[in-house]
């Protein structure tokens, strides 16, 4: 039965932050998936996953999230998303509605008003989980044509990649391994650093930018101290904090980081032999050209 949902074909959920400000993530991801033979099917009627309004209205989040799940159910496809926020939100909604009949009935009463019904027929995966479980390390390893052996990087998976454990649970959030493994498949060395699993601060930047930017700043410091030449992220919001806001942090604290921040799909794409242009690397705010020149 499980095989009826073809493993390497997904409903592609883009979310809001990527089209709004992080197009380079989508561009690099589409090209990498294409080369890996993963088929992405568009979701032309998809809406916001609901996470942004969860702090204000949980029920509204559930309804928005469930609407996307219903759309993918109609397509008979599992959802893949590049954003950890979208992944945790829709995964959580999906599992809650699958296991809590009372909640499912309540949400279906609402969905019925727009002609939809949640059945619980699909799964939701983040890029990293899909690369590990569906594409597989072997296939990725075979696709690497230009190992980035001279490169030392660090990873920031982001809280929502693996938390809350109750709904994510496919890797240990205290000692995460998957993203590190995926990075090492490119030939780059993935360094450990202090407080690796700490939050980037994005979700509260509109409430208190001082606290949010201090969280980002501390992580930048720890990554730099470990000797990493770049930071690798798998979430558009984390990327915004580390890349787009890096100069703001440098100005506010009179510090200098100059740390390129790449989406994992850009790193993998480079290792697969794609050009920086194909991977929209010039859209990054922190210029990675010195790093690129040093590559094999």
């Amino acid at each position, binding site marked *: 039965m499980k095989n009826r949902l073809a493993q390497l074909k997904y409903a592609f959920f*883009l979310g*809001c*932050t990527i*089209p*709004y*400000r992080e*197009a380079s993530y*989508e*561009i690099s991801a589409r090209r990498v998936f294409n080369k890996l033979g993963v088929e992405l099917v*568009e*979701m*032309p*009627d*998809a*809406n*916001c996953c609901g996470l*942004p*309004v*969860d*702090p*204000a*209205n*949980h*029920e*509204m989040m*559930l*309804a*928005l999230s469930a*609407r996307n799940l219903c759309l993918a159910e109609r397509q008979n496809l599992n959802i893949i998303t590049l954003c950890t926020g979208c992944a945790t939100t829709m995964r959580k909604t999906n599992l809650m509605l699958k296991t*809590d009949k009372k909640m499912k009935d309540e949400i279906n009463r*609402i*969905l019925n*008003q*727009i002609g939809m019904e949640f059945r619980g027929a699909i799964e939701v995966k983040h890029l990293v989980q899909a690369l590990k479980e569906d594409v597989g390390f072997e296939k990725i390893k075979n696709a690497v044509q230009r190992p980035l052996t001279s490169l030392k990087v660090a990873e920031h998976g982001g*809280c*929502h990649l693996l*938390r*809350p*454990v*109750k709904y994510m649970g496919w890797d240990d*959030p205290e000692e995460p391994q998957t993203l590190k493994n995926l990075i090492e498949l490119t030939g780059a060395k993935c360094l450990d650093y202090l407080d690796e*699993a*700490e*939050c980037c*601060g*994005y*979700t*509260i930047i*509109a*409430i*208190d*930018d*001082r*606290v949010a930017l*201090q*969280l980002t700043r501390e992580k930048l410091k720890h990554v730099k101290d470990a000797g990493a030449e770049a930071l690798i992220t798998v979430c558009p919001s984390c990327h915004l904090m580390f890349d787009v806001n890096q100069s703001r942090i440098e*100005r*506010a*604290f*009179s510090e200098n980081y100059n740390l390129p921040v790449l989406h994992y799909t850009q790193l993998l794409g480079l290792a697969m032999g794609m050009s920086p242009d194909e991977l929209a690397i010039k859209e990054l705010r922190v210029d990675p050209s010195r790093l690129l020149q040093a590559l094999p």
Partner: protein
Amino acid sequence: MHFLSFKSSTRRTTMTQTTVEASKNPQPSRLDPSFKNEVLREHDAETLKICFQCGTCTSSCPTARFSNSYRPRTVLRMAQLGLRQKVLSSPTLWLCTACFTCTDRCPQGVEVASVLRVLRNLAVKSGEVPLIYRELASNINETGYAYKIPEIRHKKREETGFPPLPKPKTAEIAKLIELTHGSKLLKR
């Protein structure tokens, strides 16, 4: 001061600057014993009653490290005691990043982050809404997206040869917002 150089155009909480630190307020607070039950009724928040105040949440909290006033353990205790007004009107309630580290590390299995979310949801019902949430909800209501996507993004996609962005049926989304009592959140 470093922070004078922050352009705080995005800091627009509408609430008064009260603090959650009981010790800083010499006025005795009114207790409302029914408040706890309002919280416990909500999904995932029933675990509030088993919190034994060990403080693992606060010591794991990224925000608590840089905020002088946000302490999840204190907020949970105040909720248990029924300090309705103090909890719901506190601007620091909105400093939870929803990272869920507290929830994952709680030795009692308290869904700390979910309890805090329920408290913020109750604050909204009592009329305390930071402007950013009005903006996000209104954007979703109008476009289906949390942010207004600039026209240039659509053009760039076309140039790249990518499929157009999803164009969700906004009438359906507005209906969902209405049915989940989200209309109160929208900008007036």
